[in-house]
């Protein structure tokens, strides 16, 4: 029996060729998309992983103020850790692009050449492949940067710049504006010594030995530098400015110390004479008393005068004798006594002063010692050398391509599941239709003894074979150059990565080739089993149970309306499939449109919100900002986004900034956040937000006091004074100047200069970059939409063939037939689209952040009203076209059909 039934398979294929072809196309396209997207992601992810050991990819990198000394290097590498300097100079080219100059690498982040060889002589260089491609530079060509002309000996890439961006805060690659160039050490030194270039970046890459990243970081933090080690004139200047203040304070303290010591010494000396003075005074007084005693003896008064009794004795004699001579004697002795007492008082005072000055001198000495410590603290002359520390995991430049692909892989697998569910549902509709159409035959076969499993096998076979063939074709196309080959081109055209080997992950082969037929077989088995549960007689009689049709009364008197509603209810399964298909396809289209709208938004709003013409980023800030510039203080913190670390620029500004529409309140924990953060994280005023500083291992918490409509990256605005206080800076510190005109600032002081044009160009990269993906998504979504709609509307017409044939017999005209059988679909499509479009938009908006977790950018996804209208109109237009195509199908239904078949 199976052999007999199998003969029907080819006939079934022939009679339903169009439908099977459409189904095949749907599965092929779905699997092709999944395999090509996921496969290309695997190629990049596995390729990146494989290249890690070949290219000796760093475990991380750190930047320092001053190059590490040999002693530092020994300390840091004692546990087996490898360190290699990755010093760089940014050189300007003739077309205002920047080439970052490095020496050839030796042990870490090795150059992977696509063609040519490494630079080995003066004047030779290897060019980064992205820049070379953007400028159509080949091996043997020359390139001029920083006034030096290099002959390109090779073109390649390095793993620490696979997302080749100039700064960590840059959100997009600009191949034409930024690239890398590698040359010999001698050539590098010559360029450096030539001057006229920005400050050298002292960056080191490392590969860990036995310590962890954290332990290694602590080791680097322990390395301090002294001002004497500094050679850079701007750095020296900055340190000297700091030291000038310190020296003034130190001199003052020293003077005080010296003075107090001198004072102490003088007073001590003075105090040393006190005893003599007291002795002399005593002698003088005693001599006077002796002389007075002699005078009294001459007067017949033999009295011994002492310092204790002289006053009373003489006074009693004066009152007894009224002698003027005795009175004068008493007065003179009193004066001598007072003098003596005065000498005593003076010498005691001198002693106390000497003691006090000695204490003062000790105090001042102590003050001096403490002040020295204080000055060491305040004026940090022992500067921490580490300026930044980024592990490879947190470095968006390292493994950026693979990181980006992880999302593609997940999105591809999820999209694949959605497509598989959709086609499984579509297949189930076909099967149900076929079984209903053939149920009298099935009943007869049942009655003749054919078993259910034979019938199930028969009905499952064709769709499963179709699914298998489609899956194989889809997978082959997916793995071919037009699949993975095409998809991975986007990666090669954006990231600076070597050409990876093709990979064939077993799970993807299983996903692409095995899953579709398995799902198809399972869905069919489920549906067919249910349908074949009827008795043979019931099937033969083609019985419709009374409950098969929804029993409801329709109020309307209009027959076409009644008919269309009844038809709609009858075909509700197909209609639901059509709406689900519409939703899925609109989700795919919406994904493309959201992507496009976001990229355009980044481009347009960045241009709109960038009000400055020049941004000068200082490495060595001046004391005061140029008159025509607006000083600001920028720190870069980070925030986590689905496992990715994204940069947040904290900008300290004055209340009345000319260039930013933000008025941050004073306070170290108060901040105004920009709209990009709100769009991504849903923050609102009053929320507490936390950002991190990985280099300092510190978290900063802010209360959101306002939201600024500023779309450039993730940005937080603070009151500049409060920010200086928060980050321990001077009250006049700044490291950035914004200006609406070009300023005359020494290049050596600057990290970089960004113009408004640079910012706009960087922002517009997204549109170019995403255009092919947007196009693919919109085309894929439209094809899915067309195929599903064509298939489902075709099924509806097939299922209604008997009815159409019947009303043709009655004399219905084509227009009337369309009105009865197809116009109801217009209602389904019109209402379905009205529901599906906003739902799809909502769903895509919700999941969209998952697709860009590694990009810190604004995410304005709001559509202009007319875009909704265009989508809706497109749906109706496509429906109308398909409707027109299906009229041919209706025309083909013969009136005699009804005479041949029995419903």
């Amino acid at each position: 029996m199976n052999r007999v039934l199998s003969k029907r398979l080819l006939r079934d294929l022939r009679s339903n060729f169009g439908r099977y072809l459409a189904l095949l196309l749907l599965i092929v396209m779905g699997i092709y998309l999944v395999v090509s997207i996921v496969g290309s992601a695997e190629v990049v992810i596995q390729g990146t992983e494989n290249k890690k050991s070949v290219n000796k990819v760093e475990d991380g990198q750190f930047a320092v103020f001053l190059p590490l000394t040999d002693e530092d290097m020994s300390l840091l590498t004692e546990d087996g850790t490898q360190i290699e300097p990755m010093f760089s100079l940014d050189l300007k080219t003739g077309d205002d692009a920047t080439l970052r100059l490095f020496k050839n690498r030796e042990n870490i982040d090795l150059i992977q050449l696509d063609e040519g060889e490494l630079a080995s002589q003066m004047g030779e260089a290897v060019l980064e492949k992205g820049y070379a491609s953007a400028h159509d530079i080949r091996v043997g060509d020359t390139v001029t940067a920083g006034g030096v002309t290099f002959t390109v000996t090779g073109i390649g890439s390095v793993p620490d710049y696979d997302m080749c961006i100039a700064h960590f805060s840059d959100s997009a690659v600009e191949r034409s504006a930024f690239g890398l160039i590698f040359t010999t050490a001698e050539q590098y030194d010559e360029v450096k010594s030539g001057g006229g270039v920005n400050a050298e970046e002292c960056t080191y890459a490392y590969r860990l030995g036995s310590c962890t990243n954290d332990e290694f970081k602590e080791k680097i933090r322990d390395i301090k530098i002294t001002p004497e080690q500094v050679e850079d004139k701007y750095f020296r200047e900055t340190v000297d400015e700091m030291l000038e203040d310190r020296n003034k304070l130190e001199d003052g303290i020293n003077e005080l110390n010296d003075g107090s010591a001198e004072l102490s010494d003088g007073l001590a000396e003075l105090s040393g004479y006190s005893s003599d003075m007291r002795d002399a005074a005593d002698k003088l007084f005693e001599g006077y008393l002796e002389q007075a005693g002699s005078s009294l003896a001459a007067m017949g008064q033999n009295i011994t005068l002492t310092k204790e009794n002289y006053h009373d004795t003489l006074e009693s004699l004066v009152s007894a004798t009224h002698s003027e001579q005795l009175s004068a004697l008493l007065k003179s002795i009193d004066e001598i006594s007072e003098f003596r007492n005065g000498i005593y008082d003076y010498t005691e005072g001198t002693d106390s002063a000497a003691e006090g000055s000695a204490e003062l001198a000790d105090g001042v000495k102590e003050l001096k010692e403490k002040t020295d410590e204080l000055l060491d603290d305040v004026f940090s002359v022992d500067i921490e050398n580490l300026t930044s520390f980024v592990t490879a995991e947190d470095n968006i430049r390292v493994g950026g391509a693979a990181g980006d692909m992880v999302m593609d892989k997940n999105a591809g697998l999820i999209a694949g599941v959605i497509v598989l569910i959709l086609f499984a549902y579509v297949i189930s509709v076909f099967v149900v239709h076929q079984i209903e159409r053939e149920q009298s035959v099935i009943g007869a076969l049942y009655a003749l003894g054919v078993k259910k499993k034979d019938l199930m096998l028969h009905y499952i076979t064709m769709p499963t074979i179709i699914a298998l063939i489609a899956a194989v074709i889809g997978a082959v196309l997916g793995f071919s150059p037009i699949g993975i080959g095409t998809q991975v081109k986007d990666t090669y055209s954006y990231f600076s990565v070597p050409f990876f080997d093709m990979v064939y992950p077993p799970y993807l082969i299983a996903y692409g080739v095995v899953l579709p037929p398995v799902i198809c077989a399972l869905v069919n088995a489920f549906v067919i089993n249910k349908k074949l549960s009827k008795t043979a007689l019931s099937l033969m009689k083609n019985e419709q149970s009374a409950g098969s049709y929804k029993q409801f009364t329709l109020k309307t008197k209009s027959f076409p309306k009644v008919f269309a509603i009844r038809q709609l209810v009858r075909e509700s399964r197909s209609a639901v499939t059509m709406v689900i298909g519409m939703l899925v396809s609109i989700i795919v289209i919406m994904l493309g449109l959201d992507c496009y709208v976001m990229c355009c938004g980044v481009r347009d709003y960045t241009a709109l919100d960038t009000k400055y013409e020049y941004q000068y980023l200082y490495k060595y800030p001046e004391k005061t900002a140029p008159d025509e510039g607006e000083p600001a203080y920028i720190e870069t913190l980070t925030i986590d986004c689905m496992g990715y670390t994204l940069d947040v620029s904290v900008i300290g500004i004055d209340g009345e900034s000319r260039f930013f529409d933000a008025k941050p309140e004073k306070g170290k924990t108060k901040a105004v956040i920009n709209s990009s953060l709100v769009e991504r994280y849903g923050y609102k005023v009053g929320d507490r937000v936390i950002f991190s500083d990985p280099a300092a291992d510190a978290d900063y918490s802010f209360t959101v006091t306002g939201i600024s409509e500023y779309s450039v990256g993730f940005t937080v605005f603070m009151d500049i004074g409060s920010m200086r206080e928060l980050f321990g800076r001077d009250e006049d510190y700044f490291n950035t100047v914004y200006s609406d005109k070009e300023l005359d600032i020494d290049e050596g002081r600057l990290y970089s200069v960004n113009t408004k044009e640079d910012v706009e160009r960087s922002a517009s990269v997204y549109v170019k970059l995403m255009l092919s993906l947007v196009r693919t998504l919109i085309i894929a979504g439209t094809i899915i939409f067309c195929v599903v709609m064509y298939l489902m509307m075709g099924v509806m017409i097939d299922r209604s063939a008997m009815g159409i044939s019947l009303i043709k017999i009655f004399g219905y005209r084509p227009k009337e037939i369309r009105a009865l059988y197809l116009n109801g679909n217009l209602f389904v499509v019109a209402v379905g689209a009205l529901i599906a479009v906003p739902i799809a938009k909502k769903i895509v908006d919700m999941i969209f952040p998952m697709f860009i977790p590694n990009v810190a950018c604004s995410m304005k996804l709001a559509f202009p009203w007319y875009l909704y209208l265009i989508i809706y109109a497109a749906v109706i237009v496509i429906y109308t076209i398909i409707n027109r195509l299906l009229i041919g199908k209706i025309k083909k239904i013969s009136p005699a059909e009804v005479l041949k078949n029995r419903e």
Partner: protein
Amino acid sequence: MYLEVKDVKKSYGSDTSYIQVLKGISTGLERGKMCVIQGTSGSGKSTLLNCIGGLDTMDSGSITVDGTEIFGMKPAQLSDYRRDNLGFIFQFYNLVPNLTVRENIQICQYIAEKPLDIDELLEVLGLTEHQNKFPAQLSGGQQQRCAIARALVKNPKLLLCDEPTGALDSKTSRDILVLLEQINEKYGTTMLIVTHNNYIKNMVHKVIIIKDGLVKKEYENEKRVPAAELEDL
């Protein structure tokens, strides 16, 4: 002559599979008469009915209905011809399963210029109480009555019946034939009934017997028996 068939030929297939079903049939029927076409399976009776009904094209010959020639008509013209002139009743009813009895009848009411009153028709056919039921909820006889109502609602001049009692039991068959007879009398509808049943010929005005694609015999039935009195069905 209301219906006039002249030398109609019809064949299917080509080469080895070629078969000529109608080999030059000529016959006719007066307005308001009931006629039975009888013949064995494969004789060509249904093909002739389909040709008269404009459902199938003939290779040659002529069919005129009320003076209108069908041969050579384009599909759209045939559609209008059926719309304006014909009613069909089938052996297996061919009701639209997801429409109620009333709605099935409305299918033809909708395209009729001067349709009959549905309620009256439902009353005549005994379907008033079933008008909101779906076909699956009806017996075979009720379904055929619904099909008759549907065919009659546009008040056709010619009613074509293909084995109208073929799927019904004896009693129900009689009821249906009585109904057709009443309709013929009440509305003056011309009827052409294709049947295997040998007894039905007794109730009609004319009998045409076809064999191997040719009219073997045709005659006017002078001794009509009312349907209700037919001996055995």
